[in-house]
């Protein structure tokens, strides 16, 4: 019950606090690219682009690794490796984001700086740090959905002489795909909302990134950095950004629910009546 109330309270307060921004600059102006509190411009497009690009970058790096790990745990690993890697992923999931951010700041950023010059901050290091953060989420959910595929499918395939990989590719992974898609979406959700780890390696700068290694901002980092020293419409614009983030993640949850309903429907369609 509390969670329902809390959710509504959150939406209510975020709307209330962000109302001046919507009113002042108009909905259309919120989605422009000029952010200049001194001149009363509060376009958030830069941050939206920043958020989306670091998240997509993280998916790009993290998802293949995570799904491959899930497949390894599901189909290839012996019991002891299963335990070791499974535990490892749990531990990885528990590492605070501030620590990952700090590590990114003290190792990745200098590395990129040395290799590519410039500040070494921007989308690339952010994506790498985020990839590490979403791997546990994606890997464990993908693994659960692979494990949920009845063993009998794999058995039937193997008994016909299929290799493990043929069995996975033709039977098990197709059967598990709604779950795997769900894992990726939840990973995306985690990436969209992550703040600290990104904030320490993204720059920051209020400008569109020219390449993968120029400082920029995301919705979360902008909120984090400026909430403390903002007033009036400026502050309210930050709340508007939070509101957009909230709706983004609720949209993803809605997608996940749709997928999981689909998955259960597919399964129940084939219920065995004997």
């Amino acid at each position, binding site marked *: 019950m509390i969670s329902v109330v809390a959710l509504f309270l959150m939406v209510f307060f975020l709307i209330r606090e962000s109302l001046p921004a919507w009113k002042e600059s108009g909905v259309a102006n919120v989605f422009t690219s000029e952010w200049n509190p001194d001149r009363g411009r509060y376009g958030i497009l830069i941050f939206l682009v920043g958020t989306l690009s670091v998240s997509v970058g993280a998916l790009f790096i993290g998802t293949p690794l995570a799904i491959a790990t899930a497949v390894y745990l599901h189909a290839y690993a*012996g*019991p002891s490796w299963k335990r070791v890697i499974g535990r490892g992923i749990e531990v990885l999931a528990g590492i605070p984001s501030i620590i990952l951010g700090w590590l990114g700041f003290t190792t990745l950023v200098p590395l990129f700086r040395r290799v590519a010059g410039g500040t070494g901050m921007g989308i690339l290091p952010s994506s790498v740090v985020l990839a590490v953060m979403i791997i546990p989420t994606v890997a464990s959910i993908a693994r659960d959905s692979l494990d949920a595929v*009845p063993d*009998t*499918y794999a*058995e*039937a*395939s*193997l*008994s*016909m*002489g*299929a*290799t493990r990989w*043929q069995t996975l590719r*033709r*039977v098990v992974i*197709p*059967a598990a795909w709604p779950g795997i898609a769900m894992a990726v979406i939840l990973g995306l959700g985690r990436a969209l909302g992550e703040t600290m780890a990104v904030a320490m390696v993204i720059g920051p700068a209020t400008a569109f990134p020219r390449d993968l290694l120029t400082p920029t901002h995301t919705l979360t980092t902008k909120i984090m950095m400026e909430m403390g020293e903002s007033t009036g419409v400026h502050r309210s614009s930050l709340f508007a950004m939070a509101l957009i983030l909230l709706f983004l993640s609720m949209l993803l949850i809605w997608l996940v629910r749709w997928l999981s309903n689909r998955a259960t429907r*597919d399964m129940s*369609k*084939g*219920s*065995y*009546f*004997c």
Partner: protein
Amino acid sequence: MATSDEGLLGARGGLRVARTAEERRDGDPSPVPDKKMELVGLSLSYGEKKILDDINMAVPDRSITAVIGPSGCGKSSLLRCLNRMNELVDGARVEGKVYLDGEDVYAPDYDVVSLRRKVGMVFQKPNPFPKSVYENVAYGPRLYGVKDRKLLDRIVEESLRRAALWDEVKDKLDSSALSLSGGQQQRLCIARVLAVQPEVILLDEPCSALDPISTQRIEDLLQELKESYTIVIVTHNMQQAARVSDYTAFITVEEQGGPGRLMEFGETREVFTNPKEKKTEDYITGRFG
């Protein structure tokens, strides 16, 4: 390799069946005419636990061999030894030999893929893939590199016909296999195995999840299939074993938790009407198990 006529004769008439102890002592462990498969001193253990101990029996060509026994005696595990499906279990260890057409399938250089193509398996619970009817049957041929659509069409149709399912599904080849009834699903699984042209078909309690009418259809189907294939069926249903099989192997455990041993093997009629072992008699008359 014997022709099917000889096999049938042997099975039906029992003319060439060695059923006396003297004949068995002659070194041939199995009273059968034409051995498609043969198990010699086969033992199976999972880790420390021994599941099967020293099984010696033969699987006669083009006939139905039933494996019966109380639950937990290892009869399903025995079946899985025949196409090396036990290898998928961690810690499974097989000792002894299993011959297919005189070749030891556990020899290090024996190709497990071709073994599984020759020795197909149908499982206890119907387990069609969550794909269309067509794709289920085409699965095996595709694995073996058949891409030609026309050839696949023919293979699918003929396999379904042989599995006595064609007439029921010919209009819904593209619908999900999971939308079929349980009995149809099981026949689809048989069609899926037939599509790779096996020589031996292993069935692990194929009717235990089916209603009597579906069971009847599967049993009829088996009678047809044994003209062309060697069939081994594990069943806990003694009536079924008596109805469908030509040979029967009775496996049981001698002490609680001990390994399964082959108690008796012979022509089904003999085993059921004139069992040599007291234990067999007790089991088939329902006094234990």
